[in-house]
């Protein structure tokens, strides 16, 4: 049997969960900064934009989870040597939790209230 070396691209793909989290997080921050700094968007639209971004991010992570489960199998049942990317499914689940968690301020806080003492 000849083994085929896997590429770093596959490794990076296994990081889909936190990559989507990062994209979502920075998008929320930038959208809010633009909405509240004057030149950009109307401030109330940020809530809807943020909510849409959250739904998209969750959909992407869910899709990644399906793919990761299909390709990685369940880590505990696979031989140790083959557990190259078995970290991917739990990492995606953790990222989904983080996406939801960091979105909560969208639901409960006013958009451009000054945040100082």
């Amino acid at each position, binding site marked *: 049997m000849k083994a085929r070396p896997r590429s770093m691209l596959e490794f990076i793909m296994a990081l889909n969960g936190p990559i989507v989290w990062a994209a979502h997080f920075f998008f929320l921050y930038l959208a809010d900064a633009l909405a509240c700094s*004057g030149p950009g968007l109307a401030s109330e639209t940020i809530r809807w934009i943020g909510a849409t971004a959250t739904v998209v991010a969750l959909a992407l992570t869910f899709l990644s989870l399906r793919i990761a489960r299909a390709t990685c199998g369940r880590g505990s049942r696979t031989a140790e*040597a083959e557990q190259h990317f078995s970290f991917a499914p739990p990492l995606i689940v953790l990222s989904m939790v983080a996406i939801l968690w960091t979105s909560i*301020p969208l639901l409960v806080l006013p958009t451009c209230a000054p945040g100082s003492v």
Partner: protein
Amino acid sequence: MQLPPISLGCNSPMTDMVTSPADDDTRRDAERKQLGRIWAPPSGWRIISAVNNTIVGYFYIGAAFLFFLLAGILALLMRTQLAVPSNTLLSPDTYNQIFTMHGTVMMFLFAVPAVEAMGILLLPQMLGARDLPFPRLGAFAFWAYFIGGLVFFGTLFFELAPSGGWFMYPPLTSTRFSPGIGADFWLLGIGFIEISAIAGAIEIIVGVLRTRAPGMTLGRMPMFAWTMLIFATMIVFAFPAVILATIMLELERAFGWPFFIAEKGGDALLWQHLFWFFGHPEVYIIFLPAAGMVSMIVATMARTPLVAHNLIVVALIATGFFSFGLWVHHMFTTGIPVMSLSFFSAASMAVAIPSGIQVFAWIATIASGRLQLATPALFILGFLFIFTLGGLTGVMVAMVPFDWQAHDTYFVVAHLHYVLVGGMVFPLFAAIYYWAPALSRTPLSETLGRWSFCLMFLGFNVAFLPMHLLGLWGMPRRVYTYPAEMGWQTLNLVATAGAFTLAAGVAVFLVDLIRNLRPSVSEHAGNVWSAGTLEWMPGHVFGPRSIPGVESRYPLWHQANLQQESETGRHYLPSAPTGGRETIVTSPIEALPQYLLRLPGPGWSPFLAAAFTAAFFMLLTVKWVTVATACGLLAIAFILIWTWSNDPEPVGEVDIGCGVAAPAYMSGPASPAWWATVIVMLVAGSLYLSFVFSYLYLWTVAPKSWPAAGAPLVPIANAWGAAALLVAAGGAMLAANTALAFNRAGCAVLVCASAAALVLALGLEVSGHLATGLRPEASGYAALVYLASALQLEVVAAIVVIALVVLARLACGRLSHARRVTFETLALLTYYAVGQGLLGLLLVHGFPRGIG
């Protein structure tokens, strides 16, 4: 090339079947002698020309510990000053210099280098490599850091040290409020020490991914290697932000480019964003390798494999990502809109989850095994207690309303020391006690170790626990004294007593080191803890006698006779097939052997290049521009001398043992040089994206004056011309790549044309702005416009130098279609420069028009 199956154990080499035992013994003896001769370190004072990891690693950890002691003495001075109210021991200005240097030295000259040193020292042995792939880069990184660090620390003795706090906030650090050269020492000194950290990170990333022993798949990789991989990757993305910030503040101080001056359209908060985009990941950059050490030590001390290995990997990766979403929690009191603050507050709380996963996994490992309560285990228990407390106060200050109360008080001082000392110093001491037998002829003393731990643990908590209360009672940070009527004196005196107890613990450790530590590259005390990973195999100056085929996460526990087989040369690379220093390069995921990497031996060029690089930056600070320039040129010259011997003549396949034949030359995407270049591009890209952020940030601060004060825009034709030149440069490089196969002269012409096009594009851009009368001193906007060109200049200058090397190698017959690594480096950087240049044009010319 013949690739073996995934199981890479290597128990019956063919050579053993066809030769007699006597012949075998003779051959093995000859192989061992040959390896010893090839890897022999330079003797006497010439040892400073050594480049291999074991020797440089010892220097590195020794230097880091020296800076730990020096910064610790500064801490004792501060605690002595604060022991009683209205103390006059230190003047306010001296106190400011001391707390600035304490923080700066601990963070930049101790914490990051110490964990990088542990990586350089331990990784090759742990991974089963003879050395990491770029030994001279590792040596350069060390010497640049050590020489630069010593000079930087020396400023304290001449009252020239910076005094604006370790995070150097402008406007306090602007020329207006800090007119001396102390701030310049910080900006230039720390800026280039960070470059040395990046050099080390490149070595570590490529080393972990490409020089693991055959069979050591990602799933079998030791946890310390995982953490070092994530640590180094985080450096690549975090450090460029602060490098850009230091460039900007130095340009402001030296030439008046007003990036942070509000009345000229700059903004002091921009510094805080850039600094903390580096500064918060920095905390995890320090903590993650320490967590990796803890994972290794806990498994051995509990004599059982780590519980939830996979979940710990998940936690490490998640922490690496989440830590980039926390930086604004250092800026909760700066008036940023409350919703933005809340995103960062939520992320700050979320990062507790992966940290919690690790803590519970360690506790579960301890519970599932039988803990051997030796000194390393004591330090680990101390770490768990202290770090967990620091984590809990971290969640408290992650909440915006609480932070508004606690900000800039001693509560934060207590929190950050619980996290950093608990999260990094205690694990490091555990690691030194744990790994000393693998690095020294004798282990450290258990008795002294226990004394050291008890004093340090007690002293630390007595020193820092009261600071939580002091903070809640309102004592601000960074005050050189306080009046008696505030009622803070008792707890301050207790804290000072604790600090001296902590110092006594460190002193006991120092005595232990002096009495017992006898570093050696070949004679070690041995596997006294019965650990399961490869660094505990019998060590030689050349690493393992033969590189073991790995079939388990804990090969020494699960592969019977592995040590004996490796020692008798029955595994990979039992000899030196090309007659020089070598190690096996394996594939990044499954660790399949791919080729034999030839490594350089000792040489003076890394040391001299580092010394002149340090001199260049430090002399610039004191404005000896001519001498500094000469030193800079000498540094480049020595780097060129060192690179000249890179990319040796290709040779065919050689036998690397275990019946595997592999090529001894590799170019293209599989070669470590290609990987290193891609990482350099990622560093440069991160730096440029930080610039793009700065540009857009200043626009959000002053959108109505963009371009500032009606400054005229350069005609769009200039931008199109520069873009066309950039595209032409990329096209010429593509054509040169094709020409290299059949027409060297044509290739040389195209390389020249490509570099010339890059220079012309830059010239067109700068001359266009100059022609409109725009000057960088005029406004934040103008300074950013010129900064785009300055950053492009850095890349183009490097490309011009490398192009000259390529031309020289072509002329000398050291570069051809087959021997092409130098050319590939140039080509990759050229494509990067084209991309960066086009993005810069889009931003500088497109953005103002787009919003107008």
